[in-house]
């Protein structure tokens, strides 16, 4: 009997550690709106302390997933634990442990920046002394100290976003949810917001769950990324691994007879993977610069003319293309393949 108990404890221990690591865990989480399935049986987990990104085109189900995790929507099926609490049965505990920055600004524009923070602090039951010092802290974090007495309706888009980030951090959340944090902001402001997000991830040790449809954003910020499309998760891995799965370097080329060249290249073992698209081929390789002459030689030998060729580090654009066969930004496929190739060749 005793040994049995001990065994039970032993087997329970590593399990417990694991659940501590998974600060968000979903199992077959599903949301249907009538006949339309916005989120389709997704299961994933987010580690404590990391920046996790949900990457996908508009309408992929990112916001719906967030809304379920933050208890604003009830899932149709499946379940999820956030900070160790069930999102349906322990709503209030979940709400206590999370901060949210919504896609559209959710500030009271008739109040000042400080008043918005004060409102939030009181809604979360933060005591008077704590409230004051914490407001100072978060204002300093997003550099809004000098604008605290200005009505939010006079804030710029970037300032509003910063204030919302500050507000999301007010109550020391374990997890901060950011839904498209830089949507509609200019390039400079985006950079600044990224820095704030990184800073709070480090300084406050906050786990961050963000959604975005910007590749560069996910690339720059996230430790791990889940690519979501049509309500389903296509792949989840670290940013690095995702890029590696495509190939260390990516050669993109267009030629006169793609099929012929492709079947020839498939015999070469230094090519990790070959994908053909409408008007171009991509080859995942190591040391891409050295491989270009080899590709040329092979092509010449079988009498295929190479029209253009480029090599570069794979971006998340390439990753998305690799896993979905489609580009992210434009869903109209045929034309974009060409556009993309132009961008690829021109940009490198």
């Amino acid at each position, binding site marked *: 009997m005793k040994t049995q108990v001990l065994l039970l404890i032993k087997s329970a221990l590593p399990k417990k550690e694991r659940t501590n690591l998974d600060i968000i865990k979903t199992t077959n989480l599903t949301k249907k709106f009538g006949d339309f399935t916005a989120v389709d049986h997704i299961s994933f987990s987010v580690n404590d302390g990391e920046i996790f990104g949900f990457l996908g085109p508009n309408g992929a189900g990112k916001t719906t997933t967030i809304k379920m995790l*933050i*208890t*604003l*929507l*009830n899932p149709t099926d499946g379940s999820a634990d956030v900070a160790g609490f069930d999102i349906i049965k322990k709503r*209030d*505990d979940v*709400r*206590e442990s*999370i901060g*949210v920055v*919504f896609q*559209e*600004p*959710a*500030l*009271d*524009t*008739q*109040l000042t920046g400080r*008043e918005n923070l*004060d*409102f*939030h602090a*009181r*809604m*979360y*039951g933060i005591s008077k002394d704590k409230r004051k010092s914490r407001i100072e802290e978060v204002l300093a974090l997003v550099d809004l100290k000098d604008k605290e007495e200005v*009505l939010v309706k006079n804030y710029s888009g970037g300032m509003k976003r910063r204030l919302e980030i500050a*507000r999301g951090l007010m109550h020391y959340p374990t997890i901060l949810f950011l839904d498209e944090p830089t949507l509609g902001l200019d390039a400079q402001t985006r950079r600044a917001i990224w820095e704030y997000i990184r800073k709070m991830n480090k300084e406050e040790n906050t786990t961050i769950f963000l959604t975005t449809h910007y590749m560069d954003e996910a690339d720059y910020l996230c430790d791990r990324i889940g690519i979501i499309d049509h309500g389903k998760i296509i792949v989840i891995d670290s940013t690095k691994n995702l890029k590696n799965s495509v190939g260390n370097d990516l050669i993109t080329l267009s030629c006169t007879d793609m099929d012929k060249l492709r079947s020839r290249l498939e015999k070469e073992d230094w090519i990790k993977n070959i994908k053909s698209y409408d008007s171009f081929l991509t080859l995942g390789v190591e040391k891409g610069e050295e491989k270009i002459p080899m590709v040329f030689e092979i092509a010449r030998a079988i009498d295929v003319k190479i029209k253009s060729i480029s090599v570069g580090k794979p971006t998340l654009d390439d990753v998305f293309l690799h896993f979905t066969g489609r580009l992210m930004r434009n869903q109209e496929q045929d034309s974009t393949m060409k556009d993309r190739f132009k961008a690829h060749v021109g940009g490198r």
Partner: protein
Amino acid sequence: MKSKEFQAIYIMWLREMKRFARSKSRIVATIVQPLFFLVILGSGLRSAVMPGMDVSSDYLTFLAPGIIAMAILFSSMFTGISVLWDRQFGFLQEVLVAPISRLSIIVGRTLGGATLSLIQGFIILAIAIFLGVPIASAFNLLFTVIFMVLLAFTAVGFGLVIASKMSDFQGFQIIMNLLLMPLLFLSSALFPIATNQGFPEAIRMLVFLNPLFFMVDGLRGSLTGMNYYFAPAIDFVIVLAICIFMMGLGSYFFNKSEA
């Protein structure tokens, strides 16, 4: 209830106060409009005799409680409906994701709206007294305040129901014209109906289906002690029931509308 909930109720209330204080046009509109009714309509027709009025009463005395009711009704409904604004501007999400019970959110908002409309009601009451509207007694004044509070709460609840059933601002004007105006005109706030033999029987009966009638009647009976149909105590019971029902309905719809 935890102290956290009280703090949330307080800050919801405070927010309503601040927003009101900063909206100059709203302050002007909500005070000037009933004032026009009272001073111009009431004073102009002061010596007019309406069929169905008490003999000892002049028109201003009849009208004043009706205008107080009107001001409270409009202002409170506005607070209820302003949930729609919050939804449109996204702020409602910030409120709903906080670890606070839905009830506290509604209570805070209702208290805020009720406070504002009561302030307006008292300003008009003061003006009415200044213009010479007689007060039955100090006790009656207290009773009047109770009616004002109940009316305020009912109207906020009504506003919440409307807000949860409307998805945009276009419907707002329609509601005001098609719902509020008939309610007001058939409440005997502006002229006597139930006791006015000039009206067809059907219309006089219609009054008894109008919740606002009992509030105006109770307010009038308790404030001036004249021109009332039911004894204020009877009105009070009816109004209390309507108030509880409306608040319940408002909370129910508010709870349902977010999920």
